């Protein structure tokens, strides 16, 4: 079996496809997914940049490729603004005397959602969240569930554009969820099965929101004894944390699976989160030094007027 360390390639290495003959020069490591390592590469003859995923295991990677192919055939796009296909090329490379499968996809510029929200402000969850839900709804409509939804697998960029990365956990509805991560897993919270259904993704998405806005509280709840953990713990956080208040209505339904379908989940988010009454925008209280300065300046004005008219 191939392990991740075997696929540690230095920048400058050229990967050549055995079947199609494409060659790609490695620029840098982009990240590690569940089934392989992703590199930023440059196509040798065109100079175009792509992302290349090298697989740890032939069967696992092929299984992921099959899902991407099906999504393409069913007309699912990567994001709302982009009609690019998921898959650009599939091939095998010879590395260290062994045959390693890889595929080429479009390179997505962006940063993990957590970083994006941190830099732009919590308000941006309104829009990025909606875009994630829309992307999930597209997958669900095609009969798939994303499965391993977590902040690291959501890339955000521009003015709230969102793209899901790592399709290794994408599972057919009705089957078992292929990959998941503890905190975002319905089973971890004793809140339901690991069978792939739309509600599984709604649940993970809810935990992602809680994580982004109330990470410490989530961490504390996740540390409780396994047999005691329930989604009541999560619902309690939603109820008690003022930062989650604007999202509470949606999150409660997301955590308990109470949506008709993913379209309703999107519409409800749009209605209750994006179009919420404007009152919320919390005005920061005027800082003390400013009040003080104001009093001083009024005093100065007074004394100036006094001196002037005297």
């Amino acid at each position: 079996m191939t392990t991740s360390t075997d696929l540690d390639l230095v920048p400058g290495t050229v990967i050549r496809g055995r079947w199609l003959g494409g060659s790609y020069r490695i620029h840098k490591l982009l990240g590690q997914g569940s089934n392989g390592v992703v590199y930023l590469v440059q196509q040798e003859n065109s100079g175009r940049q792509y992302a290349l995923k090298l697989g740890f295991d032939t069967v696992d990677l092929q299984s992921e490729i099959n899902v991407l192919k099906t999504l393409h055939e069913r007309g699912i796009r990567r994001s709302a603004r982009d009609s690019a296909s998921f898959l650009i090329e599939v091939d095998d490379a010879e590395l260290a005397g062994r045959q390693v499968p890889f595929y080429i996809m479009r390179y997505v510029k962006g940063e993990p959602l957590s970083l994006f929200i941190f830099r732009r402000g919590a308000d941006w969850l309104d829009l990025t969240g909606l875009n994630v839900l829309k992307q999930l709804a597209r997958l669900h409509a095609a009969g798939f569930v994303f499965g391993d939804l977590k902040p690291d697998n959501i890339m955000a960029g521009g003015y709230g554009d969102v793209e899901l990365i790592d399709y290794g956990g994408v599972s057919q509805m009705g089957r078992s969820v292929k990959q998941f991560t503890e905190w975002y897993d319905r089973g971890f919270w004793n809140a339901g099965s690991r069978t792939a259904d739309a509600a599984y993704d709604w649940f993970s998405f809810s935990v992602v929101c809680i994580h982004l806005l109330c990470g410490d509280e989530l961490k504390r709840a996740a540390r409780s004894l396994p047999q005691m953990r329930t989604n009541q713990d999560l619902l309690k956080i939603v109820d008690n944390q003022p930062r989650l208040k604007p999202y509470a209505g949606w999150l409660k339904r997301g955590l308990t699976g109470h949506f008709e379908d993913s379209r309703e989940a999107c519409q409800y988010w749009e209605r209750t989160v994006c179009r919420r009454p404007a009152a919320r925008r919390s005005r920061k209280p005027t800082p003390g030094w400013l009040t003080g300065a104001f009093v001083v300046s009024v005093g100065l004005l007074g004394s100036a007027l006094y001196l002037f008219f005297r």
Partner: protein
Amino acid sequence: MKQILLITDGCSNVGQSPVMAASFARQEGITVNVVGIIDYGTIGEMGAQEIQEIARAGGGMSRLADTRQLSRTMQMMTRKTVVQTIQQAVNKELKQILGNHQSLESLSPAKRSEVVEVMDELTETSPLDVALLIDVSASMKPKLAAVEEAIRDLMLSLGAREGSSRIAVFHFPGSHGDEACVQDLGWTSDLESTRSLFQRLVMKGATPTGPALLKVIDFFRYGTLNGHQTDLGEKGAGEGILSDYVH
């Protein structure tokens, strides 16, 4: 598909060689996987080596894990083993159809895609029986809560498969000298039955891994630990069991 998942934290010290027992299991069509728990670094070089050899003889894989990684490790191994069992069967077929040096890797991506689709289908739908064999010698005591939780979590994942999945749970050594292993739970798919498995155990020092493995092989064959003497199995298994469970 049949698997034994052995969870231990040390070296066997009583009875037949566990490596021999694992090899025997493999001949019976049962794959043996082993997790070595290394929470306090107790496993030692001998233990680590033995674990590796048991898995190799049993056609499975071995991993060292601490209790926090246990659940993940067990699920990964179980799933990988299912995939590998299917892959071996598929490769055998391919060799028959396409000649001796053919394997999945040598197919073009387009053909491979079709084969893997069938494999995914089989992975999801083939019936699967996993017998868990837990070492409860004295040093394992502080780890049993984590083991129990990992078993529940494994059941949760297996339960999501489309095909039927069952687990059975055994521990070793038994409470008196000649008892190599004790049944805690017969074949079940019921998540609730995996709670409170090991509550009233009396911990002992010996680690008869080999004899315990042989007993579990019997269980696969006859549905009871006592070979062909059918009825005695339930009676001997007195501790922490849901003996009223009927599948």
